[in-house]
């Protein structure tokens, strides 16, 4: 998290800390599912020769401190479900960058471990709507020891598209994504935050909703960040989770 601040216990009780090919994030859905980015499990620049062929997927929950969350023990994963649109072999294509991890056992919810809700309409994606992105990823100069968050606005898609062009980046920015941030304030998510969610508050229902998944960006804190648009995958998520949604 670039230019963010430390989170207090219970600010983001859905936050998961994952280690597969490196640090990643995720969000608790219900009491047995983790919503994350597919690329944290199947990275784009996967070096088969150097990487472990069968990396150990560890999921941690329930704390804001990396050391402490590890001490609580990992939650074994029963099943990994990658969205069928995800293409690991296309380095610049983050289409379908969404995955579900089914835990072996249900977790017991409490003040520091609570699920986040799924979006149900487009209003969560209005330009300027403020959301929170949290994660254990890179800060300005070092890896985070504690969970940090940053408050970001949903950005104008066209502005983001133009910005991408200035960066000469060919990564597709599709309707299944949205962008956030403000090049002026240099706040952003960064490596290690992937899989964490962009959470907004639904004031009507007084609930927090995961509208996006930290997916990709060009550099960190240099402009905009790009997120998987969860609303477009709600049906798929619900189908995979069965009657537990």
């Amino acid at each position: 998290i670039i230019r963010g601040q430390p989170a207090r216990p219970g600010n983001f009780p859905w936050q998961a800390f994952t280690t597969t090919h490196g640090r990643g994030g995720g969000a608790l859905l219900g009491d047995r599912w983790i919503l994350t980015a597919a690329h944290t499990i199947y990275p784009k620049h996967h070096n088969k020769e150097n990487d472990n062929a069968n990396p150990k997927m560890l999921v941690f929950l329930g704390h804001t401190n990396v050391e402490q969350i590890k001490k609580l023990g990992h939650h074994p994963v029963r099943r990994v479900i990658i969205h069928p649109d995800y293409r690991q072999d296309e380095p610049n294509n983050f289409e379908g960058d969404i995955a579900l991890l089914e835990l072996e056992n249900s977790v017991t919810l409490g003040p520091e471990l609570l699920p986040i809700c799924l979006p149900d309409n487009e209003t969560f994606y209005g330009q300027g709507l403020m959301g929170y992105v949290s994660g254990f990823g890179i800060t300005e100069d070092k890896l985070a020891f504690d969970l940090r968050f940053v408050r970001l606005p949903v950005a104008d898609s066209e502005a983001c598209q133009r910005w991408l062009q200035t960066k000469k980046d060919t990564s597709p920015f599709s309707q299944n994504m949205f962008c956030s941030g403000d090049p002026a304030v240099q706040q952003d998510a960064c490596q290690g935050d992937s899989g964490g969610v962009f959470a907004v508050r639904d004031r009507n229902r007084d609930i927090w909703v995961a509208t996006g998944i930290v997916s990709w960006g060009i550099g960190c804190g240099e402009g905009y960040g790009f997120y998987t648009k969860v609303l477009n995958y709600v049906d798929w998520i619900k189908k995979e989770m069965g009657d537990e949604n």
Partner: protein
Amino acid sequence: SIYLPQKLYGEVTSPLYPKPYPSDLETTTVITVPMGYRVKLVFWQFDVEPSEGCFYDYVKISADKQTLGRFCGQLDSPLGNPPGSKEFMSQGNKMLLTFHTDFSNEENGTIMFYKGFLAYYQAVDLDECASQPNSVEEGLQPRCQHLCHNYVGGYFCSCHPGYELQKDGQSCQAECSSELYTEPSGYVSSLEYPQPYPPDLRCNYSIRVERGLTVHLKFLDPFEIDDHQQVHCPYDQLQIYANGKNLGEFCGKQRPPDLDTSSNAVDLLFFTDESGDSRGWKLHYTTETIKCPQPKALDEFTIIQDPQPQYQFRDYFIVTCKQGYQLMEGNQALLSFTAVCQNDGTWHRAMPRCKIKNCGQPQSLSNGDFRYITTKGVTTYEASIQYHCHEPYYKMLTRAGSSESMRGIYTCTAQGIWKNEEEGEKMPRCLPVCGKPVNPVTQKER
């Protein structure tokens, strides 16, 4: 004499019949039928020279050492003494027919020809048991000492109860060692009652009636068995047993009280010595279907279905429990209970109890808990509990229009199952509450 072969019927004719019979003849035909039969004889044709007193020619019939008649003439003529259609009957199994003719058959100087006779005989059953005071033939009169029974062609003797027919087939001797009475009611008495009973008796009168009946004994007057003033029944005595138990030994002139033996098997043993002239005893026994005690509930929750004022052998009753109670036979739970009245007047199984149904410890609710609405820890019929979820992290799943409170109430039913009014046995579910952090992020700086 001509002896006819022994047959059941036959014909007898005069010599040369139907041609005229010869003169100067005297033949006797002996008709014999099997023993136990009499001979009946009828003339079908009769044409014998008529004479005054049948002096010349005649037919003489005799049986049982008696002459039954002397006949001559024609059947439809007033002359002589024709037999007509008269039937002749012997007492024994033998009849003699003597035919006598003189030297000539003339009438007013004219020679007459007479055809003689044709008679038919048949064997007729002899009722040997009928009184025959005039019988003269030895051996015809039955000598049954007690009872005589006739049958076609013979008879047999039998004896009164308590006596046994002897080898001679006629005489009876006291024998009462195994008298059996199986009718549901009847009379039993000492031999010769009310005349003095015979000496040296060893009698056993067994009353055996259908199982499920109980025998009642009622002695009749007179009751008289040789007695002694100081010693109890030293000479003769009547012992009564039921179910192998001695109900008493009786003698004297005081008849025993009426006895309810409570048994379907009663034995009366009657012993007499070599002397005495008491008149004996007689009793009337009756039977009654055995009764079982009135079933009684052991607790206030037991229901005896359709109770009857009286229960007897083979009757049954059904027991159920009030709603919410369970039939228990010892520690065994029963689905139903029926008891049958046995032939010994007892119920074939003991009265059960009704125990209140217990639903047991309520199932634990994942991510939730329960509390007792009714008395804490009591899980019996009509007890109620309230399930609730661990809020605020979990919320109970409810149908539209229902409340968590309603969904969480479970009552112990009469079937011993915890049930919710809306969902029955189905347990409630506590679902995670999403998007409600207890400590959401806030920022004061503006």
